[in-house]
């Protein structure tokens, strides 16, 4: 259990190379850019994006990918630590890729920022989780599975709360970010 807790805790300081997405507070002061990337959905697209990020010395902290309304195009949401490079280098390096149609840097913008957590906890005592907005998906002999979605800070708090209930397993979707006004 303590191990699981440690794994779930976000990176302690800006600039650390922790894999876990940062809390909202941490993000605001760190070198992490939030990018929404519209791509042509090719066999190598994701590899090329990941490769461009890696070889420029940047680091992916969060990632989600899904189809768009246009057939053949996907939207990738990225949280990237740009290290010692200038902040807008991440966007520029992604824009160079032929498969990338458009990159929007949403860092610091007014956005809807959501993430989904699915977790299985040992206890059947779920009042505090449900109070936060969690929904029960299934219950069986070794625990209860819940889902929860929220913004970055809500997810952060929810995961802290989960730890107190004895986590059996937990998965997170990565960030989904949309501008509030289009």
């Amino acid at each position, binding site marked *: 259990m303590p191990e699981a807790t440690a794994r779930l805790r976000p990176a302690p300081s800006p600039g650390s190379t922790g894999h876990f997405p940062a809390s909202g507070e941490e993000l605001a002061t760190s070198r992490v850019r939030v990018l929404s990337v519209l*791509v*042509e959905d090719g*066999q*190598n697209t994701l*590899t*090329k994006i990941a*490769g461009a990020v890696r*070889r420029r010395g940047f680091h992916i902290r969060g990632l989600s990918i899904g189809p768009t309304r246009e057939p053949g195009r996907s939207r990738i949401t990225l949280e990237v630590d740009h290290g010692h*490079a*200038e902040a*807008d*280098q991440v966007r*520029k*390096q992604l*824009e*160079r*890729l*032929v*498969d*990338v*149609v458009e990159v929007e840097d949403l860092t610091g913008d007014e956005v809807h920022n959501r993430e989904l957590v699915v977790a299985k906890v040992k206890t059947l005592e779920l009042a505090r989780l449900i109070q936060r907005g969690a929904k029960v998906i299934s219950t069986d002999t070794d625990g209860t599975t819940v889902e929860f979605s929220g913004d970055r800070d809500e997810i952060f708090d929810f995961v802290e709360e989960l730890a107190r209930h004895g986590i059996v397993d937990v998965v997170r979707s990565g960030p989904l970010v949309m501008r509030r006004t289009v």
Partner: protein
Amino acid sequence: MILEALEREGVEYIFGYPGGANLPIYQHLHEHPKLKHILVRHEQGAAHMADGYARACGRPGVVFATSGPGALNLVTGLCTAYMDSVPIIAITGQVNSTQVGRDAFQESDVIGATSSVTKHSYLVTKIDQLPRVIHEAFHIATTGRPGPVLIDICKDVQMADAERVTAERLHIPGYKLNGHIDLNHAKQAAEALAGAERPVILAGHGIILSHAEAQLQELAETAATPVGTTLLGIGGFPVKHPLSLHMTGFMGTGWCLKAVQNADVLMMVGMRVDDRVTAKLSEFAPNVKTFIHVDIDGSEMGKNVRPHIELVADAKQALAAMLPHIGTLQADRGRWLSQIDAWREEHPLRYKHSNGQLQPQDVLIDMYRRADSEAIVVADVGQNQIWAALWWNYDRPGLFINSGGAGTMGFALPAAIGAKFGRPELPVWCVAGEGGFVMTAQELSVAVEHQLDVKIVLLNNLSLGMVRQFQDDFYGGVRSQVDLTHMPDFVKLSEAYGMPALRVEKLEDIGLALDAAERTKGPFLIDFRIDPEANVYPIVPLGKGLGEFWEAPENA
């Protein structure tokens, strides 16, 4: 269908090597007499030949290789072209599409291995993708900031029957060409340059790639502003022009470095501003109040130096847009230009030639005296490269070819062969050290087979000279693994390949040997035994600012 598509794109030469996974292409090669195939002796040679061809004549170089080791042997050559923005189309065979991912014989993930050294790449698993892909590949390789594009084609696709397919329309919505110039920024840039007290222009490979040399010269003259070039920008501005600062960077001329370090406005055009140009970044051009950066690749803006005025555009269009705003120059440049002349006097290019040994500069000066600006020089990497850059006064683009960004040893011989195919009317000199030369010496067969007039000047110091110089000066004087005493007899080696060669050890024999090379039709090699202690100067010590350059010792 692949070969038809290449004909349609106007391809004349293919540099390639057959193997299991591209045999279906080779089976039909003889049906396309317009496509001349040059059989290389190693795939790296093919990539460098295509590279030299493209740099010499401006058309994209085309490469064929088979799967696995064949394709992977291209990687260094692709990287060389990628770093220097050279258009190459590499067509590699891949195992059957049904076998991909099963570790089939000679299967390798070529797309994965080459992604970071290509501008773009395609894996073709279906015949109907092919016409579009080939057309797109040529478009992407040659437009915007050029670069190599790789097309990996499964063997079953090469064999598939297809109806005659014509080139399809391009479908590359993610491919952005920066054709739109911000005229406001162009005006600001022009005004900053015109109003400067001590302006300097630095010009890179982008000047040559966009054919902007005339605009650059006009702008420099109108704004009375001196121009230095990067190693790859050599030829973009005539070295003998009164406003020329010659080459910049950590092995640039003393008067250029002085000008850069004292400039108040610095305009950098068509260049990446890499570490070889800036030396210690925090001490680069410390007196500049306004940095202007012009480059077609927006990601270069602020990558190394944050410009105050940026112009993301083709160099030719950007300079043309700036010109009308220079107006009648108000500022007085007399003092600045005479200061630069004083630095030129004070810090001339010089070399020590009083020890009785053959100096590399002796050879290059004699070569230049003969060729003037009517020859192409293809240099390898190392001391030979910098000597060849500094001791010829290149007056136009395309005459000096070398591997700048990647610094690939072994580049010169195959690139010189490619350059000769691209510009058969010009003499081609290959200048190399013996270390780099043996890395791709097998391509001598190609020069002999096609009786190419490529003259090879080996500046042989029996060591890895540049590494030796660095060890002497920056690594405590410990000479480690730089001794190349055990090398083939290069005269016998050339003869074994079927070409004549001479060895020169004395100053007075230089002319005779060059005469013999010029008289001989076909390839010729001269093994010049140069002073093993000869060094490159000026040089900025590693980790120091540009202003701290060392100069050659004076002659006793």
